[in-house]
């Protein structure tokens, strides 16, 4: 999908935008400082699951929106995987048309309230912002503004439902209800298809529900966005594992004309070091699923939880950050990150690292576990850790961590959360031996259409990319919807 430059130009030259640009000189706009997000104080928030960021007020949002100089060539959009018309929605905020701003977001994004909270904006739109690129100054707070507009709409009670084309009477399915599947479903519904989303778990949302914690993304926000899809006619079937509960062939026989696989990268990796299967050592997926999906920390729920006092989380990504901050909230006296590279190389969002530090999380960078020990009941009680130093850059461009001989030492722990990455969910590839996959188990697709080696099967999100991001998954879902629409036009609809 290339940005339709003409369209952007036309939008920019509308009367209200011209007026607005004239009303305040760019030079004056550049004088303003970037707004700070309102946050719940660290000591208060670690005692509950309250959302850390509390959003911007209307006045703050309008003030921040003034900073955007409405560039003739808005490079920020090129940094957005779903190409939100960023200047337009920001200018709508500047003039106080918050509901219209939300509509602009929804033109291209299915889950704006989610993206406003979890996107790594500092690596995407904000990184391409004029301020950042040309002036070396703090970018316009695009993410905060996105969240503001989406929240405003939700709280106003005037949630707009995108227009849906006349029903075509053609059934298509999404396998998985994470951001990829939801974005796909939204676009297909807009085009008039009859969409069913199949989900293996008992809740809709994929990682948004079972992975990302309440203090970063309240479940209610996901539910409301899902409700929006329901209003557009999308059907949801939970507790349904495609390939197990029914095969793709069964579903073809039920009349489904094409499928989108958005089954995610659900399979947790372990390090395969001695003692890793002791009690109290678990994957971040298990830890977060117990807490977020099963509500194990709440007494009235039945799922049990090991509430550690000294918790070590292995890894440096968002998942590791979410786990360690969860541990703190569950009452850990000591909650620490153990990561084999330096802090600059951690893949987590910058904001998560900042928040974690404020909350008293310890960072043991350039350290890696090599062995675990347990008490007589098999519960982990100690770990052996080795120090690392940075060598030459590796394939990822980051400097390779090299173990330092003889630097091993011990840390007493009672809980270890292993968060060293995930592999693609093997359910669909296992059910379809003829499907082409890479040697890592990701599904091979045509990058333009997202079509797989099986013509009526499209795929996107983490099952294609390995562990990536919400917004990339959504971008894939939308691209697959376009590809599938074309495929259906060419094959199914042409056949009489």
């Amino acid at each position: 999908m290339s940005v339709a430059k003409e369209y952007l130009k036309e939008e920019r030259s509308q009367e209200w935008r011209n007026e607005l640009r004239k009303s305040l000189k760019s030079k004056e706009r550049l004088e303003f400082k970037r707004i700070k997000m309102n946050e719940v104080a660290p000591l208060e928030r670690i005692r509950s699951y309250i959302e850390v960021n509390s959003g911007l007020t209307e006045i703050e949002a309008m003030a921040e929106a003034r900073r955007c100089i409405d560039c003739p060539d808005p490079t920020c959009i090129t940094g957005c995987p779903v190409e939100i018309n960023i200047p337009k929605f920001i200018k709508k905020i500047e003039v106080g048309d918050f509901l219209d701003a939300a509509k602009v977001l929804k033109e291209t994004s299915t889950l704006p309230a989610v993206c406003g909270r979890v996107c790594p904006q500092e690596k995407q739109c904000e990184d391409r912002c004029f301020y950042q690129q040309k002036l070396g100054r703090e970018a316009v707070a695009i993410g905060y503004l996105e969240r503001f507009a989406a929240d405003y709409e939700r709280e106003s009670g005037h949630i707009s439902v995108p227009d849906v084309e006349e029903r075509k009477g053609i059934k298509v399915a999404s396998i998985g209800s994470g951001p990829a599947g939801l974005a796909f479903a939204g676009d297909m519904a807009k085009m008039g298809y009859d969409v069913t989303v199949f989900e293996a778990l008992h809740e809709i949302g994929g990682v948004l529900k079972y992975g990302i914690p309440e203090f970063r993304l309240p479940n209610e926000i996901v539910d409301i966005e899902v409700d929006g899809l329901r209003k557009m006619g999308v059907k949801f079937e939970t507790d349904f594992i495609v390939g197990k509960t029914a095969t793709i062939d069964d579903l073809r026989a039920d009349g489904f004309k094409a499928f989108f696989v958005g089954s995610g990268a659900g399979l947790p990796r372990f390090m395969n070091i001695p003692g890793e299967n002791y009690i109290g050592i678990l994957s971040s997926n298990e830890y977060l699923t117990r807490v977020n999906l099963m509500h194990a920390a709440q007494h009235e729920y039945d799922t049990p939880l090991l509430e550690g006092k000294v918790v070590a989380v292995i890894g440096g990504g968002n998942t590791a950050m979410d786990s360690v901050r969860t541990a703190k909230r569950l009452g850990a006296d000591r909650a620490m990150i153990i990561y084999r590279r330096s802090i600059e190389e951690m893949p987590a969002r910058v904001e998560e690292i900042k928040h974690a530090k404020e909350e008293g999380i310890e960072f043991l960078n350039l350290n890696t576990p090599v062995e675990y020990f347990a008490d007589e009941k098999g519960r982990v009680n100690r770990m052996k850790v080795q120090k690392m130093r940075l060598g030459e850059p590796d394939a990822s461009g980051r400097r390779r961590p090299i173990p330092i001989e003889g630097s091993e030492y011990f840390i007493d722990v009672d809980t270890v959360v292993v968060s060293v990455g995930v592999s693609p969910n093997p359910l669909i590839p296992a059910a379809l031996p003829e499907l082409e996959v890479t040697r890592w188990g990701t599904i091979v697709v045509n990058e333009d259409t997202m079509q797989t080696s099986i013509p009526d099967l499209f795929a996107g999100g983490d099952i294609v990319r390995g562990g990536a991001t919400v917004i990339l998954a959504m971008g894939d879902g939308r691209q697959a919807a376009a590809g599938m629409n074309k495929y259906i036009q060419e094959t199914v609809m042409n056949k009489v």
Partner: protein
Amino acid sequence: MNKIVEKEYFSDNVVKIVVEAPRIAKSRKAGHFVIIRVEEKGERIPLTIATSDEDRGTITLVVQTVGVTSSKLAALEVGDVILDVVGPLGQATHIENEGTILACGGGVGVAPLLPIVEAFKKAGNRVITVLAARSKDLIILEDQMKQYSDEVVIMTDDGSYGKKGLVTEGMEMVINREKVDLSVVIGPAIMMKFAALTTKKYDIPTMASLNTIMVDGTGMCGACRVTVGGKTRFVCIDGPEFDAHQVDFDEMLLRLNGYKEQEKKAYEEYLATVKK
């Protein structure tokens, strides 16, 4: 969906539940299991599908009440609905004509053994089944097993029924009498451990169906992991059946007790509320 259509007590704490799940009834095979969640605040637990009836669109589960969730499930009556039933999960049993099969079930492990015995019999094998329990009233599914076995050997710890002795003694009796080509063992981890040691002595290939703690059942969490042949495997997607001689049962036994204290406390609290 998921409506209970039939319920029958096999013993005081073992109950058979027949539940509507047409899709699962159609696609399930011997060895498969489901994950259920009884109600909104409930946990997800795995249960093997004992049998199914495709025409009625039902699957049969056999539950032993050992804790909160199994008790809540057993407390449901005909007409009630189980909130979530998802499956069929796991790899189906690899069924072939091997010759003579020694099938051993202990305690509630007899329920998951039933479909496997049935499938082996239908594939033309000679099937000898050993059922073991503490006492007579805990022996379940004997008649159903007889239907698909050439012989059923009953072992009880206290000698109240069948022969007195452990499951392994029943197994050795058969092994010493005739050539066994494959053994299948399902039951408590400790029983499977000793059954596996027994067949190892005689070099008989043996499969065990493992009942680890699970959360999602789709390979997403690793709660179910076990060590098999020195490698970590996930029971929910790689299993539940593994080469019993390769399974690290000692580790599995420890892991099964991972949440023991919490489970015990929760069960006591639960029992206190139902008694009221």
